């Protein structure tokens, strides 16, 4: 961690599967932008020097070839159409319109609030416990219904998100109060979290490390402090963390039993996928 304020240029290291493609698009766009700007700049500088007023000089009246100005338009238009068709639409579909199927990706529920991130893991049974706004209190931030059997093995984590490397995970996000926005710079994607609706965001982290979550939508007084961490870990480390969380919640004996149940369930054929829509 860098303690000194620096003068970095560029983009932070990427840590997500689709990041490399997005970064190369970002580079492409900036190369084109700089090229256009340099061409304009050189032309402008040339004009300012070549056509400066001279004593007794006279400007050219006629402006022939007005179609010339359509050439940059056409080039820009062609470039943009190519960008949209070749990359824009497919990438958008991949990142935003589709999420990985439930079986292949870890489902994590995120309930944002002023000014914290509440992550809810479904636990070994793969089913999220029921939430009820009436149950929300200082000690039960997301209003989890303890009477729901599915809630028993749910793991809650405030501000710290643990995920295994190399496996997709999907955040099912909602907000209790105002609009927030989940941003992790190294993951290259973000999404508003709106009260009253569920938005999704999926990542496949591919570099182990600790990354910072920031809120990217002004949410009030403590907006700046609404930070958290993503820990991208080896699958074994992730499992160990999950086990520790379960033990903290249920005690060692119950935690082992729950994990055992889940293992036998998973090996049984015809297991129905149960997740919240």
């Amino acid at each position: 961690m860098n303690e000194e304020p620096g003068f970095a240029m560029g983009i932070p290291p990427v840590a997500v599967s689709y990041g490399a493609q997005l970064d190369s698009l970002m580079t492409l766009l900036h190369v084109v932008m700089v090229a256009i700007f340099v061409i304009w700049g050189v032309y402008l500088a040339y004009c300012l020097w070549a056509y400066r007023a001279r004593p007794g000089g006279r400007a050219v009246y006629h402006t022939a070839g007005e179609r010339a100005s359509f050439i940059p338009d056409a080039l820009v238009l062609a470039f943009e159409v190519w960008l949209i068709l070749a990359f824009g639409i497919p990438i958008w579909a991949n990142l935003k319109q589709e999420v990985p199927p439930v079986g292949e990706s870890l489902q994590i529920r995120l309930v944002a609030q002023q000014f914290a991130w509440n992550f809810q893991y479904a636990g070994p049974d793969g089913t999220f416990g029921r939430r009820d706004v009436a149950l929300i209190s200082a000690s039960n931030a997301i209003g989890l219904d303890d009477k729901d059997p599915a809630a028993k093995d749910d793991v809650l984590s405030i501000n710290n998100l643990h995920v295994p490397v190399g496996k997709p995970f999907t955040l099912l996000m909602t907000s209790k109060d105002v609009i927030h926005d989940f941003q992790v710079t190294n993951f290259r994607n973000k999404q508003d979290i709106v009260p009253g609706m569920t938005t999704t965001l999926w990542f496949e982290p591919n570099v182990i490390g600790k990354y910072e979550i920031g809120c990217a939508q002004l949410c009030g007084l403590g907006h700046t402090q609404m930070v958290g961490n993503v820990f991208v870990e080896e699958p074994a480390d992730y499992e160990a963390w999950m086990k520790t969380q379960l033990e903290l919640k249920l005690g060692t004996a119950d935690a082992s039993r729950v994990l055992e149940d889940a293992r036998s369930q998973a090996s049984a054929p015809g297991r129905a996928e149960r997740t919240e829509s």
Partner: protein
Amino acid sequence: MSDHGHAAPTGFWRKYIFSVDHKVIGIQYLITSFLFLLVGFSMMLLMRYQLAWPQPGADFDPENLGLVRGFIAWLFGETNMPYGYMDPTFYNQLGAMHGTIMIFLGVVPLGVAAFGNFVLPLQIGAEDMAFPRLNMASYWVYFVGSVVMMSSFLAPGGAAQSGWTSYAPLSVVAPPGQTIWLIAMVLIITSSLLGSINFIVTTLNMRAKGMTLGRLPVFCWVQLVTAVLLLLAFPVLEAGAVLQLLDRVAGTSFYIPKDMIYGDSVFPRAGGGSPLLWQHLFWFLAHPEVYVLLLPAMGIVTEIIATNTRKPIFGYKELVGSFVLIGALSFVVWAHHMFVSGMRTSIANLFVTTTMTISVPSVAVLSCLLLSLRGAQIRFNTPMLFALAFLPMFGIGGLTGLPLGYAPTDLYLHDTYYVIGHFHYVVAPGSLVALLGGTYYWFPKMFGRKMNEGLGKLHFTGTLIGMNLVFFPMFFQGMWGMQRRLADPTLQWHNLPVQGWSTVILAGALITAVAQIPFIFNFFWSIWSGEKAGENPWQATTLEWACPSPPPHGNFVTPPVVHRGPYEYSVPGRKADYWPQSDAA
């Protein structure tokens, strides 16, 4: 409505304060909006000071700032600036109000109301606006609105603090300052509507004999397009503001979803509303609003470039067509501000496409202006320097809009400093620089004297260097992922590698501030002591230069008749290199 035929008013109040003369109203708008630009700029200075060294006790906090910190804490109070560090609530207030003031009380009144009022009737050869009393009402409603807006700082809990975009539901649960913001906005919108009706009728109805639409100067065209944008886009924000006001005071839930929690309990509302509804209504105005900020500036630049290149503007028809197209397209791009808002994801591709489409006429405008320089005799006077600087500055602003309007890259850049850099390049080194150029250009017409060239060039150099130092580093910060609207970015460790740029930005802001001193001095000094300007100090062709400087009540000594297009410079076979529109031969 024929009250512009009457005699010139006498007496101080009727002549200078409650005047119905478009020129006086234009100058009233000019001075008021410059004052508000100064207010908004000062807020920005304070925010940049905070952002340069935001954290008490941090290793990098300079120790020799004690005196400054003490003074600032005393000046703004310990609640707002404890120990000279900014309270986050105060930061949010300044952020929201800086945006609101700069846009609605500064740049729009300057570009549209000040220059539009002063120049438009002169350029079309009219004796006044179509509805002079409505014009006066428009100014005073704006004035009252701006006073109401500023008074919100005195409200309990402070001024509006939900960003200039006032996203619900944060704005619905915000302190009373937000209610005042909404009321002030309704007043400002009313003022704009009165103004735009006036501009449309004046331009369409009051052109001098021979001033066909094809001979209309580009500045008049952009004012017409701008007025139509204001007329059609602002009522939608007004509708949105009324709904938000009712959410705040009447217990409705237009923007409040079911079972929203506030604090630790359910917010007592029926619910069922949608936070996204506000965003749609807001951006339906606010994107055309961007072009309201930009088009008058482009019009001014066109006028100045035509005059100082001494040649016809390149592609008049294409230019005008592009402006009209930009205006029309600006109504169908609003949701590109909302790619990550949670709106239906399938809509995004549509708005990416419309956004890319609107870049085409924008590029066309820039191409025409750049191509106008070929074969010219460029005079480098102060207005021309500002107009020329507009071209690359707007170029940067426009180009950096590309990765923001393009959804795959916007996912990363959205709500970072890259966005701040982008739109400030459009509005500050872009529009504002052009408007400053316009001030130097039409000052002789307003006051009968020219502004000092030496001081003007000093002002120009300082402003350009300062503004670029302010806004360019924002691209580095944004590319590194630093989010906007953070009272203290160093609380997030991922921002530290680019935090250093904030000191550069502060230095740039201070340079910009110092550079305005020669301008302010020059402005007032030149009113009384500047070099006397005749009717036509720039040897220009458009009609405003065919009446005395300053123009008398009723403007033209004899009603002008227009014989040719607006930019007949260096016509072959003529001795003079300019051929005014009103010259018979």
